[in-house]
């Protein structure tokens, strides 16, 4: 598994895991998975398995962080020690601290922060298994969890990456492609507002390749956005049918 593959993409444009350049990995989402939390979601994105949960709006802790005209959004992105090949120390790494910050900043524009002054909203993200593109999957799950908690939002935030492997711009890189490939461009956005809320890149891209990658990632975001909405609806359709069957029983 640690062997570097010779080729990431073959002559026909098929990638190591059998995908075409503009193809996403299989994605599954479920809303309302942590009963104690105010909102939660689970996402499986390829081999990524991630849980996100939201608490709040609730009392600010520590108190001096409270804002008079806005809520305070806190975000913790954390990887489980067993989520990667070599055991990861459970203490937050510099990477996790940076990711917590950029994920928070990608979610903030979606929330009506001024609705809940002097409160705090906590977003907790736990990566159970990582396979490249965890920040994108985390943002997608976290915004579902926020929506599930009932916090008013301008739009769902959805994220997807594009990148470059061996001179081809491709969508949604998995772990090996991310490590061996030449660039990775994660993008988060609110599709209805045409607003990019996270953009990072590492690697080397020309300006043309960069624009191509961003546009490809945006298209990917839109596909995932449709799945996100479906996942939200599914939870409430299930709740509704359960309620209805209870009512029927009561009538009998």
């Amino acid at each position, binding site marked *: 598994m640690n062997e570097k593959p010779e080729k990431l993409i073959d002559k026909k444009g098929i990638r190591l895991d059998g995908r075409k350049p503009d193809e996403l990995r299989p994605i599954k989402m479920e809303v309302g998975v942590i009963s104690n939390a105010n909102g939660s979601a689970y996402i499986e994105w390829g081999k990524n398995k991630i849980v996100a949960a939201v608490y709040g709006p609730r009392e600010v802790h520590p108190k001096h962080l409270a804002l008079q005209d806005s809520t305070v959004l806190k975000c913790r992105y954390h990887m489980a020690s067993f989520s990667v090949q070599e055991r990861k120390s459970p203490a937050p790494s510099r990477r996790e601290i940076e990711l917590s910050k950029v994920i928070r900043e990608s979610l*903030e524009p979606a929330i009506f922060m001024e609705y809940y002054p002097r409160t705090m909203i906590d977003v907790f993200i736990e990566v159970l298994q990582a396979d490249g593109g965890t920040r994108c999957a985390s943002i997608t799950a976290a915004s579902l969890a926020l929506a599930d908690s009932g916090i008013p939002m301008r739009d769902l935030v959805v994220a997807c990456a594009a990148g470059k492997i061996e001179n081809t711009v491709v969508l949604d890189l998995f772990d090996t492609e991310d490590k061996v490939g030449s660039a990775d461009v994660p993008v988060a956005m609110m599709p209805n507002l045409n607003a990019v809320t*996270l953009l990072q*890149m*590492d690697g*080397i891209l020309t300006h043309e390749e960069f624009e191509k990658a*961003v546009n490809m990632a945006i298209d990917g975001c839109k596909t995932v956005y449709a799945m996100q909405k479906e996942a939200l609806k599914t939870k409430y359709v299930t709740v509704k049918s359960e309620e209805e069957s209870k009512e029927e029983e009561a009538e009998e």
Partner: protein
Amino acid sequence: MSIITKVKQKQIEQLIEKNNRLDGRGPLEYREMKLEQGLIERAEGSARVLLGKTEVIVGTKIETGEPFPDTPNEGVLTVSAELVPFASPSYEPGPPDENSIELARIVDRGIRESKMIDTEKLVIEPGKKVFVVFVDVYVLNYDGNLIDASALAAVAALSNTKMSKYEIEEGEIKIKSGYEQLPLKKHPITVTCAKIGNKLVVDPWLEEEQVMDARISFAIDDDDNICAIQKGGSGYFEPSQVFEAAKIAKEKAKELRKKLNW
């Protein structure tokens, strides 16, 4: 945000709408930039950058250490950033917070992804012993746009870095007299744009940073390629603004490169 800045917010936005700025600059104009190299004799390399009133000093140190297991044939680069408590009334002593970690990681990515340092030449014994290059950023005065100032100072300090000559005798390193340059391949330049109102400006100073929606930074290498990007701040960009910012960054990097003779 301070009350004074809140009062000024509207004025800053209105001025930028008309392509003016509170400090008299045009939207795509940097503040006055001063660069000094080699000012810390004890460090292997050093540089001090003044960007308006923002002041950053970077020192480099070279030690021997182990390579990362996945890159046995490459030296190691480590970047840290210290927001010195006297640099701003809002800074406090303590372990690095998310802002200083983000700053260090942006500077790190610019250097690493552009392949600026020829890390393959820093190997003493493959898989066992390599040179570790420490790049430590010290922010001495914060008046906005730490990213561009720190990235510039870091690249300048690396260009100024000297290593002792050495030879290997029976697996031991023997230091010889004389120095040679740290092997470098590229000189990345980082350009940050802030979105204020619905306009983009480069090199935001403190008050502009406090009222901006978001910022975006691009590291551009010697061949005009983009090698690292970071969006920050609690606002958003439209995709067209992202592409516009990329073009601005490319032009400004070219201009700075010419000025710096890199």
